[in-house]
């Protein structure tokens, strides 16, 4: 009489349990744990909101004033005159409001080295109202309209030239972003709405300087955006991009993986066979 064979899961568990003292088990477990952590982080990390189209609603100054008093005045003052925690908003223009609020940077969650991008709290209509209110306080750059963001005639090659002279030192040669001083940083430009890139150049948010229309014309700005959008989905013929961060990551991988692998081989060569 044959013994009844245990079912599938039991066999698997039994096999696992028998091999739990295998010398590769800790390594395998570590790899599994790392993969699980990474996966969980990707799943739960906050992702910026999907970007709205350029066709923005028109805003109302009165509704914007209401929203301003409720959400912004504690730092920027009741009349947007500024305070100890926030600058005056007179003359910053609608472009600045649209950039700061629709990328979720404003209202700021906390005052740190840098106010970070997050999910916007407001609808497109509310942002338009706020922008209209702030624009009514004093003349400033307006939100670029669709014709200013039309990239069909833009020249990515020329944009690349301008980008490398004017932008790449902070935002990296491929738009991957980079570190500044004391915890500040230039954010990555990949996947950013062209309107927000345009508004950032126009208004110079936070650490970023202003690139006004007279020294960097709307055409220049469109070319830069076209360059960024072209390089964004460019395949990498040389293999893995390693985040396009430049020599630091490439050197890091070379040292850790390359030289680490060589050291591993050398240890194996020198180890006594059993």
């Amino acid at each position, binding site marked *: 009489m044959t013994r009844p064979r245990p079912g599938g899961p039991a066999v698997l568990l039994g096999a696992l349990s028998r091999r739990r003292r295998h010398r590769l088990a800790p390594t395998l477990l570590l790899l599994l744990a790392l993969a699980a952590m990474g996966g969980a982080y990707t799943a739960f990390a906050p992702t910026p909101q999907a970007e709205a189209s350029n066709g923005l609603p028109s805003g109302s100054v009165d509704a914007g004033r209401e929203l301003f008093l409720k959400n912004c005045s504690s730092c920027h003052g009741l009349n947007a005159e500024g305070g100890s925690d926030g600058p005056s908003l007179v003359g910053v223009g609608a472009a600045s409001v649209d950039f700061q609020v629709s990328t979720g940077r404003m209202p700021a969650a906390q005052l740190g080295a840098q106010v970070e991008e997050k999910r916007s709290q407001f609808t497109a209509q509310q942002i338009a109202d706020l922008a209209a209110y702030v624009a009514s306080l004093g003349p400033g750059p307006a939100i670029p309209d669709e014709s200013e963001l039309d990239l069909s005639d833009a020249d990515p090659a020329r944009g690349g030239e301008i980008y490398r002279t004017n932008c790449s*030192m902070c935002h990296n040669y491929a738009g991957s972003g*980079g570190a*500044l*001083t004391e915890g500040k940083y230039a954010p990555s430009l990949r996947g950013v709405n062209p309107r927000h890139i345009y508004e950032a150049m126009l208004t110079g948010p936070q*650490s970023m*300087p202003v690139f006004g229309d007279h020294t960097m014309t709307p055409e220049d700005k469109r070319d830069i955006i076209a360059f960024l959008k072209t390089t964004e989905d460019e*395949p*990498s013929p040389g293999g893995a991009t390693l985040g396009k961060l430049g020599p630091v990551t490439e050197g890091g991988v070379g040292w850790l993986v390359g030289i680490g692998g060589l050291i591993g081989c050398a240890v194996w060569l020198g180890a006594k066979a059993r």
Partner: protein
Amino acid sequence: MSDQQHSGPSGARTEADAGTGTASGTGDRIQAEGVTGSGDVQASGTSHDALVGDEGSGAPGAGAEGGRLVERAGHDGELTRTWNNPGLPSHVYRRSDVDQKAAQRREREVATFFGVSTLGTLLFIVAYFAIRPGGEDILEEVSLSTKLLGLGLGLALFCIGAGAIHWAKTLMPDDEIVQDRKPMRSSEEDRAAAVEAMKEGAAGAGLGRRKLIRNSLLGAMAPLGLLAIIPLRDLGPLPAASLTGTWWKAGRRVVTDPTGRPIKAAEIPIGTVIHVQPEGVENASHPINERAKSATLVIRLEPDEIQVQKQLDWSVDGIVAYSKICTHVGCPVGLYEQQTHHLLCPCHQSTYDVTRDCAVIFGPAARPLPQLPLDVDEEGYLVAREDFQEPVGPSYWERG
């Protein structure tokens, strides 16, 4: 070093099944050889003199057990330090030496390595013929082709090496073998013959007698050094003024880089930074050199933020211009933080404070960035009032 000589019979292979016997008797041998053997570990110690009771007595020191340091005075009075050789550790057998099944398993592992290498070669060949980049998505095809070719080649080469090493380590003989080192010194006859040949040669040349030949030879060889020095003249002209001056000069317009547009002072918003070049730099005789030296950063501050009088004097309505070349080792200083007015060099994090005439506030740079005096022409465009008043870029020897 040469203590290998004492481990076991000279030049003999240590038998695998007699691994423990090799150390026996070596201690005696050291003592017997005394200090005359060239292969002995000896040191004419000075610091150990005190340890020897009666120098020159010729009495051998006490023999020691395995691995212990022995001190004694030799027959010529010289202090000798000897290690008693412990011999080789006993031979450890591998699993494949004692277990036929284990050996067969190792054999299969080695064969697997070689098999994977064959697969890698096949992968390379298949990938080479299957992916011929040239279609619409050429970059993606090149990317895939590169990766597969690299993977195939890597597997093919690595697995041959890994298999060979695994084979050598687990299956090939691993007996410990001792080989004596040959003495470095030539035999006495050879040494005497060499000295004789030298003496004969010197006597034949007669350098001591024929003074004229000797002196004229010295006279011919001494100026040979000049031949190495004189051609240095062709190393090129000295840099002259090219280190101190740039393409900027009085009245030359400031234009945007790389778009080449002149800039109206009134059209620059506060907080702006513009990367600029002097107008017409592309017409210079060495445009690339001149562009490299003339790279300048125009920044507009609130005039009351400027804290240095000279900086204010050389500015126009809060618009200041500074050389973009770091005074440390010449990287382009391009990271301007609008709120802190810090200008940061990406290479070594030298940080300049723009409100204080670009004084160095952090990092390895030794002196502030040179300021370009600005003016506006009658049409309102920004122009240089004059060239930089000090050399731009890193310090150099003659700069002082």
